[in-house]
């Protein structure tokens, strides 16, 4: 009969109270886990995709939309920019690396991105099989694309116009799959990469001698000076706009941050309520068990031991709740990820974060503090008078 087993048996006596308290703690911890998992994963994804990109230049429109479409490949592009103007910026001495992007088509919902080797270098993409494209109408696909569409090197792909629909298929030209990328955990997993010329050819630009256009440019600065000069220059003196990923994702985060904070306080309130509930349950059960405690003292248990037993009851209760809460949070996260529409931003529940130990720890602490007052009561049990009244 260790104190732990005694506490556990006491807890099992009142199953409904036990259930209610575990439920409250689990709910609070579950919500906090969910928030923790989603915010870290979203911000991780955001920063991973934006790594090495200081500025995005594209057609005028919404700054956020430009960032979302060119870095995260989720929203629609703001439009196209003339190749000539884009090249002018590439030649600017403030710029160290430029990645051109041409969007507009998709393959079974995955975006086809016309770019050059600089995109591969920027994201440090590596091949799992095959090789990179060398000629027009050759593509390299991300790991997710290959998995979902069951593609292998040598397959033929037909792109369709637009960013998501499968209508309006470009049947006149097929892409040849040359290589499959290793999984990166970033949006590159969900892309079909090819040369910009392929995109132009696909849309017949060559024949019509139209002005060549691309969608946007990803830019890396050469110096800190560029941070000040380049955006101002582009925004003022060209028909294009420049957006900073850092600034825009910070803005995005501050928008959703309010909702997250509200939920956080809500979850904390639930946890505190759980603490009060554990306190009341322990307090009440001790009133009923006063005589039991006195008898335990008679049998040789020290006052400290009784204190420990009561503290353990509170702590075991909330620990179980916390662990169930973690499980709920993770399962919930995985479910949300499963039913998510945008494949690029898919979240997963099967990832443990070090902060979760603090969550379990604070759950246990709530149990501990809720049990302190009842524990002191147990400690102070007056054996003689309790037994005389019994």
């Amino acid at each position, binding site marked *: 009969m260790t104190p732990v087993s005694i506490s556990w048996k006491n807890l099992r*006596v009142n199953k409904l109270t036990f259930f209610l308290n575990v439920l409250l703690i689990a709910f609070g911890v579950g919500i906090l886990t969910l928030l923790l998992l989603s915010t870290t994963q979203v911000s991780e994804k955001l920063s991973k995709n934006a790594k090495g990109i200081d500025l995005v230049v594209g057609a005028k429109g919404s700054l956020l939309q430009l960032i979302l479409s060119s870095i995260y490949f989720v929203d629609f592009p703001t439009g196209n920019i003339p190749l000539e103007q884009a090249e002018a910026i590439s030649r600017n001495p403030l710029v160290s690396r430029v990645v051109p992007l041409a969007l507009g088509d998709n393959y079974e919902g995955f975006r086809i991105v016309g770019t050059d080797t600089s995109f591969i270098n920027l994201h440090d993409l590596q091949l799992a099989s095959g090789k990179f494209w060398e000629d027009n109408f050759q593509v390299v696909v991300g790991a997710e694309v290959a998995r979902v569409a069951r593609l292998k090197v040598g397959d033929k792909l037909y792109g369709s116009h637009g960013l998501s629909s499968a209508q309006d298929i470009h049947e006149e030209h097929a892409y040849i799959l040359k290589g499959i990328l290793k999984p990166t955990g970033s949006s590159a997993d969900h892309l079909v990469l090819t040369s910009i010329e392929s995109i132009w050819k696909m849309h017949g630009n060559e024949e019509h001698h139209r002005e060549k256009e691309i969608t946007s440019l990803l830019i890396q600065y050469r110096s800190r000076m560029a941070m000040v000069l380049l955006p101002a220059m582009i925004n003022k003196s060209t028909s294009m706009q420049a957006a900073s990923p850092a600034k825009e994702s910070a803005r995005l985060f501050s928008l959703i941050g309010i909702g997250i904070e509200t939920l956080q306080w809500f979850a904390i309130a639930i946890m505190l309520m759980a603490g009060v509930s554990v306190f009341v349950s322990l307090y009440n059960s001790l009133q009923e068990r006063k*005589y*039991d405690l006195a*008898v*335990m003292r*008679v*049998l*040789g248990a020290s*006052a400290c031991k009784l204190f420990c037993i009561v503290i353990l009851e509170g702590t075991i209760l909330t620990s179980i709740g916390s662990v169930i809460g973690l499980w709920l949070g993770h399962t919930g996260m995985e479910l949300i990820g499963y039913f998510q529409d945008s494949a690029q931003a898919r979240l997963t529940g099967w990832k443990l974060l070090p902060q979760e130990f603090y969550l379990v720890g604070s759950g246990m602490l709530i149990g501990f503090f809720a049990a302190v007052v009842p524990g002191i009561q147990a400690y102070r049990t007056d054996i003689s008078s309790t*037994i005389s009244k019994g």
Partner: protein
Amino acid sequence: MVDVKAVSYQYAGAESMTFGDLCIGAGEKWLLTGESGSGKSTFLHILTGILKPASGKVTIDGTDIYSLSSAAQDRFRGRNIGIVFQQAHLIKSLTIQENLLLAQSFAGLPKNKKKVNQMLQELGIGSKAFSYPQQLSQGQLQRASIGRALINRPGLLVADEPTSSLDNRNADTVLRLLLDLSNSHNTSLLVSTHDDRVKPAFSNVYNLTLNDAR
């Protein structure tokens, strides 16, 4: 075995009670009698180390129990004194077997299921080892509580009105078990009672009268 000397106690707002000296030898059977209100329970609580007297000394098996620290006192009581109350008061969340195991572990002794089961057999409630207290009758509960008091082979067994809430048949069984078991374990026995059914079985009587107590 037990030596009580010049013990007195005073409840808040009441007159001080002084108890006559008592000396119980090893294996002796004593009856503690007295009208209700004469301080029988108070005396038993002092004797068993759960109520510190205002003055006097209680020595059990050579140990002055009130000179021990609180935790040592608890442990000493767990090992050397078995107590049976008027009500059995077994721990409701534990089975009968676990209640007896609890007595072993609280006394700091190794758990011994074999010994527990043997004790329950001796008490005629071996089949109830895995039952919970609410599933037992009053008589069975009282027998289990005797088992709990004796499981650690204490030198002294104290019973406070052990039969007064039982019917004749059960009172008889419980009394017989108290006497038989304390005989076979060579345990000193002190039974407080105002139950006349108990009295004939004892030769040594320590009588508390209201006068004595004052």
